[in-house]
């Protein structure tokens, strides 16, 4: 591979005003939200215009220098972890909402705009942007597209891919392409869907047109506490089976409840083994009907305590504990490791009980707080990163959870992406035939392999080494992708 020659760095400085090379300033960008994986970037560039992004990308392409895009760096799978001999492209200055089309219910935004800023820009006219990752104050829409992020409201309103109409993308050779459009479809392959969740491997997103929704007239949050985890898990399935589609349906277990209570005091019953938070929305008459129906299901499932919050303040209070659950768990252990497997809902109770057994096996505590309605688990494994043995156990525990999700017919990642974190588990979920196609897709966009090398899709030889797949060395179909 080629290095960042002095000539390359001079050319880079001619393109962008903000080029960072000082080691202490580079250190800031060592990791994303997955702090266990660190890598000092070769150089950080903070461009301001699409033209600059095009020229930087073309330059990297010409010099075969790795290029990693970074939004807010809240990713939890190391997707934005830098390359030590490459460029980290920080999109922070792309922070403008360019246009709001109130009649078409769309907003055109730059990729560095935070998720919540979109809703803030349109809430006065009664609109909002539906996907709402818990990190929404910080994470960017560019990162959301790259990860196909979800959130509490995705059960009813869909993931990022369902709420984006058009994106502008700089391809690895510096060309700018528009994907999607203002209508409901475009001719040919669904490149818009393909770009979602592609983890910065196929192109740099420089503009996003999102679909906005009218705010629901009435909203309620129901909280149900259970003395058995099983009952809560079964209640999730029962609510869905009752024909109600909640706007959100989240679950927390005892450790998560206690941590959240200690942190913000949302009023959760700390003697419960599990609780469910269920958001319902609709018209005023409609909402009453839904509330009655769900309350009936909750009681029928054995809830020991139920609360209904309809005014905004009470609702916010109930949600607060859930939204702050990650930092709350962060206070009770030096580090936590967040998993993201997704399973069929009917397996919830059996998988939660297996996770609890694994917790004993690896002697590490685990808190569960997750998108139950989607079957999207977020076990938070508590450990101390300064203790190497604990770090190793945490990683082994995480891997065992992912294996469990695959065994139950699920997936290793519902919304956080593969990044560097779950690259080995990709070898379990997919066989070499499927991985070959993924490498092919990568090569169709990025034949030289400059974008985010080494992430998201394992090379076949890596899988062979990991022991999950049998490949003869030299049999890889797109060997050029491994060049970095």
């Amino acid at each position, binding site marked *: 591979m080629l290095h960042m020659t002095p000539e390359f760095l001079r050319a880079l400085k001619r393109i962008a005003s903000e080029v960072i090379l000082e080691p202490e300033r580079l250190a800031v960008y060592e990791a994303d939200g997955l702090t266990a994986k660190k890598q000092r970037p070769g150089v950080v560039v903070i461009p301001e215009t699409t033209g600059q992004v095009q020229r930087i990308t073309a330059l990297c392409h010409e010099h075969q220098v790795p290029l990693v895009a970074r939004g807010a760096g809240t990713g939890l799978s190391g997707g934005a972890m830098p390359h030590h001999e490459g460029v980290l492209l920080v999109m922070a200055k792309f922070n403008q909402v360019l246009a709001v089309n109130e009649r078409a219910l769309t907003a055109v935004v730059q990729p560095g705009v935070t998720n919540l800023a979109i809703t803030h820009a349109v809430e006065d006219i009664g609109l909002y942007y539906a996907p709402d990752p818990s990190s929404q104050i910080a994470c960017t829409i560019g990162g959301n597209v790259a990860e196909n992020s979800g959130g509490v409201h995705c059960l009813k309103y869909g993931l990022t891919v369902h709420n984006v109409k058009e994106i502008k993308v700089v391809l690895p050779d510096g060309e700018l392409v528009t994907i999607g459009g203002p209508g409901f479809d475009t001719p040919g392959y669904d490149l818009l869907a393909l770009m979602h969740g592609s983890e910065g491997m196929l192109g740099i997103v420089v503009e996003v047109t999102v679909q906005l929704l009218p705010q629901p007239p009435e909203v309620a949050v129901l909280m149900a506490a259970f003395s058995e985890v099983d009952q809560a898990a079964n209640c999730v399935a029962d609510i869905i089976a009752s024909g109600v589609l909640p706007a959100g349906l989240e679950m927390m277990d005892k450790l998560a409840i206690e941590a959240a209570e200690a942190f913000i005091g949302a009023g959760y019953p700390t003697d419960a083994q599990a609780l469910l938070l269920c958001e319902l929305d609709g018209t005023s008459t409609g909402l009453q009907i839904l509330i009655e129906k769900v309350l009936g299901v909750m009681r029928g499932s054995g809830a020991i305590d139920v609360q209904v919050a309809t005014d905004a303040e009470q609702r916010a209070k109930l949600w607060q504990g859930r939204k702050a659950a990650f930092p709350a768990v962060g206070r009770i252990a030096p580090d936590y490791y967040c998993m993201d497997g997704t399973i069929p809902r009917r397996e919830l109770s059996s998988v939660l009980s297996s996770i609890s057994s694994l917790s004993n096996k690896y002697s590490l505590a685990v808190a569960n707080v997750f998108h139950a309605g989607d079957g999207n688990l977020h076990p938070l494994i508590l450990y101390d990163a300064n203790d190497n043995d604990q770090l190793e156990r945490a990683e082994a525990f995480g891997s065992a959870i992912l294996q469990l999700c695959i065994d139950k017919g699920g997936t290793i990642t519902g919304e956080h992406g593969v990044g560097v974190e779950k690259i080995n588990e990709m070898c379990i979920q997919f066989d070499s035939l499927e991985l070959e*196609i993924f490498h092919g897709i990568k090569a169709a966009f990025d034949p030289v392999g400059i974008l985010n090398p080494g992430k998201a899709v394992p090379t076949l030889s890596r899988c062979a080494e990991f022991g999950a797949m049998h490949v003869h060395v030299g049999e890889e179909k797109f060997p050029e992708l491994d060049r970095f």
Partner: protein
Amino acid sequence: MLEVKDISARVAAATSPLRIVGGDTKRRYGHVDESLELLEMAGHAGILDYHPAELVVRVRAGTPVTELVDTLAKENQVLAFEPPVHGEASTIGGVISAGLSGSRRPYAGAARDHVLGAGVVLFDGEYREFGGQVMKNVAGYDVSRLICGAYGTLGVVADVSLKVLPAPEREVSLALEMPLIEAQSLVESLTRRVSPLSASAYAAGVLSLRLSGLESDVADEQLAIGGEIIDDVYWRQLDSLASFQGASQIWRLSTHALAPVEHDYDRMDWGFAQRWLVDPATAPTSSQGHWTCISNTSPSFGSMSLLEQKLHRNLKQVFDPNGIFNPGRLGEGVA
């Protein structure tokens, strides 16, 4: 009964291109080479897995759409994208491969939005699975959505996993005679707030609407809107394009709802975002959106940029390096 291994064997042995067909009801979409050897998928039929409480169904591609819809109806569930049925023989594999959605599209999402996973037989005859049966899945590139709308040019879709939803408690369809401008503003105002609107079409001075949802919400809205009640079957007929039968060219404009009305359209639906012209004197153009021509003799899909074309050719090369799957269907130089 056609098994996956039979499909694999056919593909692996193919020395010349194949024309993949379900019910062969979409022959007028894209360039079809009638001389090609047929790979008929209707024999690969049946529901593989259906757990109503999971809101997921996994089904073989050759299953007739009507059979699938009826099975779901027994559990009071629906495919929310409302697959258009272009004839009894129409298969779910065909609908997904063509990426077609019905009247509910603007209000409930497209076919691709309901695809959770797919099993496909690719160039080497090998069966591969992408996506899965769970609601959220970002492991690997989203191949299962990519094959939706690819018209079989990437591979043979053997089975798909689809997200299903509870059927609305109540539905009512209404017809209102009104001028275009009023119809546009009524639909816009219903879209601007949360409403039970689930379909809209404007033709010959009549606006047709469908309301779906809770009994009380539908009743309230119906009272506010007025109009005359029509049979819900209207939408199924509309989506089947039955009223355009016999036309030699059906032109479809996909645009946005507020785009200027530049032609005397035979129908506008999807909240004015989908517009139809039957046998126009000359090929229509428009300032916004793209046209598809559905025709036996001169079919075409909307044009795309040179860069998009290049990406299409590259992807086609990955999935179908020998060019055996429906070559040319999406147009020359594309796939």
